[in-house]
């Protein structure tokens, strides 16, 4: 849904009423999670109400660099995605899966009984919503759905914000995930500023979103305001210079698994795993078992893992992917190629996090394009899927 589409109910929410919207959500039992300034970046964190939403913060992002700048503008969402994504909340970095205890001659298993948190995400971006849709496919549409993810996911409310200020790292327009949201939200805001007056155009995507909005008694937005927002969203799309061909890239990478072009990554990549951990769709985890000192109780935790750690592919005799280029190739080809064999879509939404948060500024888009185009002359001989150098 876009503000320029005809016949759709688009309401006007003045900034003064944003607090009312968030209180209405909170009263329904939700914990509010929004991007606020923490440790020099805009990170999704719990807030009490709209007054905690920062104003005038802009971000400058490029490969390996992120800086925040304070401006005099009252805007609250005039920035792109920060380092954290919704993955942290829906698929937490550490989760206790179960515990078992010796009782008489048996072992008794217990799963944590705590009720799942009810999160209302204020300000996720269109690419964030798309990332949740991708994780849904991974965790829910499988023979063994992830129960914890399902409970968190079913309980969550999404108040998304369209992107008028994409960063230099963004390429959602290539991945068809932004800068305007099409689905996956309960409520969708487009932040607008007109002669120093701050307001939001509001749309709803679900019955619950509509129910919440109805309590605010908002007026419909004037056509001129809708046109202004639509124009700005078009301009935002034009600002995005980073481009990737989402249909061509998968097959092209598959043909170049043995290309010498990967060699260069052996020297440049740290294999630090930051890209995978920052990525909102990467889903890999490991389990850690612990005992108490007496050996009476054992617990199993699930912990985020990354294909950049050698232990990730460790089998008897050593890691399958012992080289850094082998691990980089695993990451890049999984995100942009083999993910679609597994789940029917690519594993990338173009949020740019892996590009900004790579400590040495390795650019996934530039690498993928370079491997598939400029370095094409170094023709691969044959493909050996699944075998690492």
């Amino acid at each position, binding site marked *: 849904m876009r503000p320029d589409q005809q016949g759709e109910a688009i309401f006007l929410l003045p900034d003064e009423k944003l607090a009312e919207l968030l209180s209405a959500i909170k009263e329904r039992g939700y914990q509010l999670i929004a991007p606020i300034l923490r440790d020099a970046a805009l990170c999704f964190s719990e807030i009490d109400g709209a007054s905690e939403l920062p104003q005038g913060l802009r971000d400058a992002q490029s490969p*390996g660099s992120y800086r925040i700048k304070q401006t005099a503008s009252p805007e609250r969402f005039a920035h792109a995605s920060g380092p954290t994504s919704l993955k942290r909340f829906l698929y937490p970095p550490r989760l206790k899966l179960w515990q078992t205890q010796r009782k008489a001659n048996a072992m008794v298993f217990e799963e944590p009984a705590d009720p799942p948190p009810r999160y209302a995400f204020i300000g996720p971006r269109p690419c964030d919503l798309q990332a949740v849709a991708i994780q849904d496919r991974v965790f829910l549409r499988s023979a063994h759905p992830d129960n914890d993810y399902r409970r968190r996911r079913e309980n969550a409310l999404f108040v998304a914000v369209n992107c008028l200020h994409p960063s230099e790292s963004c390429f959602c327009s290539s991945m068809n995930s932004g800068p305007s949201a099409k689905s996956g939200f309960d409520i969708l805001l487009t932040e607008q500023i007109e002669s120093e007056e701050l307001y939001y155009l509001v749309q709803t995507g679900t019955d619950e979103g509509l129910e919440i909005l109805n309590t605010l008694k908002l007026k419909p937005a004037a056509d001129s305001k809708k046109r202004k927002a639509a124009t700005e969203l078009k301009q935002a799309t034009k600002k995005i210079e980073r481009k990737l061909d989402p249909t061509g890239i998968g097959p092209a990478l598959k043909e170049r698994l043995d290309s010498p072009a990967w060699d260069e990554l052996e020297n440049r990549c740290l294999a630090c795993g930051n890209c995978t951990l920052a990525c909102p769709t990467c889903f890999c985890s490991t389990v850690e078992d612990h005992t108490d000192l007496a050996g009476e109780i054992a617990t199993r935790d699930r912990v985020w893992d990354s294909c950049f750690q050698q232990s990730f592919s460790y089998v008897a005799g050593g890691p399958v992917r012992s080289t850094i280029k082998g691990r980089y190739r695993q990451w890049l080809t999984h995100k942009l190629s083999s993910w679609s064999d597994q789940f029917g879509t690519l594993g990338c939404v173009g949020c740019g996090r892996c590009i900004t948060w790579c400590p*040495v500024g390795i650019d996934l888009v530039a690498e993928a394009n370079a491997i598939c185009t400029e370095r094409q002359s170094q023709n691969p001989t044959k493909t050996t899927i699944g075998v690492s150098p």
Partner: protein
Amino acid sequence: MPFARPTKPKLAVWKFASCDGCQLSLLDCEDELLAVCEHITIANFPEASRARVDGPYDLSLVEGSITTPHDAERIHRIRRASKYLVSIGACATGGGIQALRNFQDVQEFVSVVYARPEYIQTLAKSTPIADHVYVDFELRGCPISKPQLLELVNSFLNKRPPNLPNRNVCAECKLRGNTCVMVAEGKPCLGPVTQGGCDAICPSFRRGCYGCFGPGEAPNIAALSARMSEHLGVDTSDLVRVYRTYNSAADPFRKESERHES
């Protein structure tokens, strides 16, 4: 039914060239220490008690590096008296700060510092325990992490492998939800090439990692140095020093620092 252990295993703590900080981590376990003592006999731990039980020992924790001919010989006696030997801390696993001598002429120091140099017996290099005897496990860090020490003792008591993953500091940093200080503040950080275990404590306080847990598995240190010099304003002489702190005798750090020495 309680899980019966036939006998209480004997734990010994040994000290070589070091500051005692890692041993103190064991005393620092305060709340957990009594529980640990219920399951294990502390047979040799001069920091805690003068009482000593003779060997052999089931588990020896060895702190400190080897810096004298006498210690080079003593560590073999300890190995022979120990079923399992675990070296603890940056001195025992990476040479410690005293390994800075490895890059200089120790005899010259001795002649300048001591009135009677002939009384001083010292080795040219400070070396980790694993350079001298077989080590069953290493606990990294300056000092070691208390939770890691407890996990080690716990796993030993329960006859299971210690659950101490060798992921790097970046992984722990991201798990904690920190904002990367290199990317957001342009501060040099050794997290990408450093073994985790500290729960990314320095980046959690907005400082770069100093590498006190030593090099991680197969680290690509040259790529990190390149980033630090090209983008973060670290000059060559600082690149020599940045890898020469607590673990300068650990090969990957030593080699990288030597590479920048002109």
